[in-house]
């Protein structure tokens, strides 16, 4: 036998299955190093997978979740559940006033048209799975793993949750008077969209899901491992990300953003009494106002730092670096290079400290 054994026969042998011409094949393998080697590898692969299979354990615990979801899908339930906070008691029931109903009919029809439009719009964003009326400023807490989270300002004083997952079910649970937590019956796998009143505080944690936030303007805390974060307008902000990038168009208030390899970009910062921008290898970009009471710290090991100050800023910048370069795009003329870079804009009231190992610093003007 001069040619080699085909792979399917070797696979069968590795699985201890009988094959045609077994004796002939065995004789060939005994004298062929290449086939013998291939068979040994195939057996090793099988051994590795078999060991893992043995350690998998039972799957019985998964049945309840499947059964519940199948039962839930069968129910003719409303497309969403209302978890409203206590509302005023309904007014006493009255006999219908037909003349009022007749007068209101055009409005009702117009309203129905509007409702249909709203429902269609909502469906395009995902199905509404939970909703709750809120009074005053509240904190909304959202936790997901891989699902992306998008949070936008809503049209009214309600928190609404829309999910792209089929048969998703969630509740908005009041933890205390000011905190509402979004709880899913099962971990969402697709995009979750939340609408909240402007000014709502946000507490979002994801593993790999991206976080996108519209112009909410409330205090915001976000923790993510690898998800990217993009926001339009936030209040005081505290963000921790491992590898995801962080981009915020506008922050009003203090800032603490820490990443490992992710980039940090703050488009416009105002009223930041303290701002900490810290990353290991990511780049940092910050633009905004820094004057009385401002304390800005930017630290990156190998990433470059670019700070852009508006014309009304008054700040002193200290730049410590091992090998990074410095570029003064504003050219104030007030720069000292010994022993570290000391740069001043206006009266130099605000305090800016930049530290890098190899990252460079560029200072520019901002609108």
């Amino acid at each position, binding site marked *: 036998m001069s040619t080699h054994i085909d792979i399917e026969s070797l696979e069968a042998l590795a699985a201890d299955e009988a094959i045609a011409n077994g004796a002939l094949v065995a004789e060939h393998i005994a004298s062929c190093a290449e086939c013998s080697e291939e068979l040994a590898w195939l057996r090793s692969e*099988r051994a590795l997978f078999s060991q893992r299979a043995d350690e998998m354990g039972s799957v019985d615990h998964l049945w309840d979740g499947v059964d519940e979801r199948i039962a839930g899908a069968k129910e003719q339930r409303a497309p969403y559940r209302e978890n409203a906070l206590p509302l005023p008691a309904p007014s006493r029931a009255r006999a219908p006033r037909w003349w009022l109903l007749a007068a209101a009919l055009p409005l009702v029809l117009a309203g129905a048209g509007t409702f249909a439009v709203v429902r269609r719009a909502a469906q395009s964003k995902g199905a509404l799975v939970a909703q709750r009326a809120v009074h005053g400023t509240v904190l909304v807490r959202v936790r997901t793993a891989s699902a992306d989270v998008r949070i936008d300002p809503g049209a009214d004083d309600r928190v609404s949750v829309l999910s792209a997952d089929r048969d998703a079910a969630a509740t908005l649970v009041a933890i205390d008077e000011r905190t509402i937590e979004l709880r899913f019956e099962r971990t969402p796998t697709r995009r979750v969209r939340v609408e909240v009143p402007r000014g709502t505080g946000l507490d979002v944690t994801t593993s790999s899901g991206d976080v996108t936030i519209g112009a909410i303007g409330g205090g915001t805390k976000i923790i993510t491992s690898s998800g990217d974060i993009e926001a339009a307008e936030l209040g005081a902000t505290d963000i921790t990300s491992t*590898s995801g990038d962080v981009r915020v168009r506008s922050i009003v208030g203090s800032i603490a953003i820490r990443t490992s390899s992710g980039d940090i970009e703050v488009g416009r910062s105002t009223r930041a009494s303290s701002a900490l921008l810290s990353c290991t290898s990511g780049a940092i970009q910050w633009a905004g106002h820094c004057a009385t009471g401002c304390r800005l710290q930017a630290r990156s090991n190998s990433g470059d730092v670019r700070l852009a100050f508006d014309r009304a800023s008054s700040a002193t910048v200290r730049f410590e670096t091992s090998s990074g370069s410095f570029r003064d795009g504003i050219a104030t003329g007030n720069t000292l290079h010994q022993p570290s870079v000391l740069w001043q804009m206006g009266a130099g009231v605000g305090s800016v400290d930049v530290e890098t190992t190899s990252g460079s610093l560029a200072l520019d003007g901002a609108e």
Partner: protein
Amino acid sequence: MNAMELPSPRAPVVPLERALIERVRAGEAGAFRELFRSHAARVRRFLRNLLDSDAAADEATQECFVRAHAALTGGAAVESLAPWLLGVARNVAREQQRSRKNLVALEADDEEQRVSPAPDPEALLLGREADALLSRALERLSDDRRAALVLRVDQGLGYDDIASILRWNVARVKNEIHRARMQLRAAIAAKSNGPEDAR
């Protein structure tokens, strides 16, 4: 390797399970649970190998059976349950994988790789990190290639069934599995030869 002509190994007999499918379609209480009991472990193992996370595999397994129930009661044509369920599971896994940003899909090393002699299976199993070793090796494969390998080596599916699940032709299935094996062996050999070689 020039393959000599031998009859292909006898395909395992796969019962059509037509009666069980019909009972599920008829809404018989307990029928779908019976189907779940018969196949869930296998589906979950497949998903665990694809997703490399117990939690993700649990979640995907549930999603797979919910979809399977909807499809069966909706009249989906199913010839053989196991390959069909694995196909559903594959789709669920793909959706999860798409949303995971930190997957490593290394296909750059498509070139034929020469690897060290196969380690003794017994010795391999003695290693306390055998499972972690397999995880790391699988992690280095692209999603599709990993699925093809797992369907063949762990699930024991025929090349035709794998081609149907992955929507490839059989030649591509064989090619991808061959390349997956080369990558897997390189990773295992590197690990067996010591950490400095594992890079």
